[in-house]
Structures are given as C-alpha cells and as structure tokens.
C-alpha cells in the first residue's frame, strides 16, 4: 500500500534570530487556561534561546504561590480562603465550581499535555525568571515566604518596564 509522505518545506534562510533576545510577560490572570498559555509561550521561548521574564501580579500570583493560607487582617484572611495554588486554579470559562478544572485536567491527561505544575517546573529548569509584584503582594497580604522557591525576585513596575523596553516581545496575559 502506498503511504502518503508529506515533506515539510526545508527553508534554508535563517529566520530572525531569537537567541539572546528578550521576552517579558505580565501575568495578571489566575485562570488555568491563561496560565497554560503563559507558561507554554514562556517555555517555548526559552527553548528558542530567548531570555524570558514573567512578572506575576494580582490573580497571577496564584501561579507562584505555595498552597498555604495567607493574610494578616480580616480581608486578607478572607481573600486567602479563595486564593488557590497552581494546581488548584480553574479555567476562565465553564469552571462550574471546580468541575471544569477537573474535566480539563482529565482531558489534558488523556492527550498527554503537560500539566501546569509541570510547565512551571520546566520554565524554572529552562531559566525563565519568575518575578512577583511587590504592590500586589502587599495588597493581597501574601508574604515573600508564601511564594515558591523558584521566584527570583520581588519587584515593582519600574523593574518590569526596564526589562520590557529591552524586550522584543512583551505580552500581557
């Protein structure tokens, strides 16, 4: 039987070199789907030799937070009850009280897609720099020690912008 052989066009011309170029991301979302996109792009970019920095702020902090209860004041403690860690975040649509998260995890496992904790570990291993927003940590009453060890630094907007202006690609997720 004859088999269909599809050959990809092997273009010899070099593309825009990516090695050494910078990518910076603001990760505001704490939704599972958006975090998967953020970490997939980050690991992909790192695999292409790019220097990647992810700046986590507000809900995005859940992606780099340990599964601990945080908060000092009443509101902070209330907020702490709702905040998840990277394994607990649900999709932006159809979460239905956690059912959506369960369903997505099942579907992703069936297709052998990397889980969010795996993607994050891969990002750390590839040298992606994880930074937390100082102001949101303060507002949300999350302590530095409540964040995972892979977090390189806690910075502000100026540090992010300095990095962003040196980047060829800046994403807001």
């Amino acid at each position, binding site marked *: 039987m004859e088999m269909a052989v599809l050959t990809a066009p092997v273009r010899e011309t070099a593309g825009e070199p990516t090695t050494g170029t910078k990518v910076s991301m603001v990760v505001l979302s704490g939704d599972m789907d958006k975090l998967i996109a953020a970490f997939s792009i980050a690991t992909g970019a790192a695999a292409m030799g790019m220097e990647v920095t992810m700046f986590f702020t507000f809900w995005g902090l859940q992606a780099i937070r340990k599964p601990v209860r945080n908060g000092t004041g009443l509101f902070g403690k209330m907020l702490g009850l709702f905040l998840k860690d990277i394994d607990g975040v649900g999709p932006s649509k159809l979460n239905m009280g956690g059912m959506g998260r369960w369903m997505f995890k099942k579907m992703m496992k069936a297709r052998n897609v990397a889980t969010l904790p795996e993607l994050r570990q*891969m990002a750390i291993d590839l040298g992606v720099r994880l930074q937390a927003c100082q102001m949101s940590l303060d507002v949300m009453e999350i302590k530095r020690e409540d964040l995972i060890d892979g977090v390189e630094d806690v910075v502000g907007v100026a540090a992010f912008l300095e990095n962003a202006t040196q980047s060829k690609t800046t994403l807001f997720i």
Partner: protein
Amino acid sequence: MEAVKADLTLDLKGLLCPIPVVKMAQAIKTVPLAGIIEATATDPGVMADIPAWCRTTGHKLLSMERREKVINFVVQRVK
C-alpha cells in the same frame, strides 16, 4: 534520503506543544557540534514548529517527513 548516523535518537511521540521544542532545546546541548539528532513525533504542530525553531536558533533541519501520523525529522547542531 541519504543515511545519516544519528548521535541521538529522540522519541517525542505523544507529546504536544510546547514539549517537543523544549526537549529539542535540551537535547541539542547533549550532542557535539555538527552532531545529529533524529527524532520521531506525532504532534502535527511540529511540522511548523521544528522548522521555525531551527531557523531561529540556527540549527540545521536536514530533513522532515510525515508518514500517516508519524513525523520523522533530522536536525544537526550548528553552534
């Protein structure tokens, strides 16, 4: 296709984006300069992603072909 002797054979079957390029990036460092990686994948996305990865990182895509669901490609380390 001429027969090339691979320094490393990589099985990427069943893995989806972005894992194939991540594995290639890790693997390319383990072969010597001009070394060759022969890989097999099943994610149709690699048909676009591996050539793009090669063009941007400077490594050389020697061949790439897809038979049914299986994609075979050969990459040479350039730098």
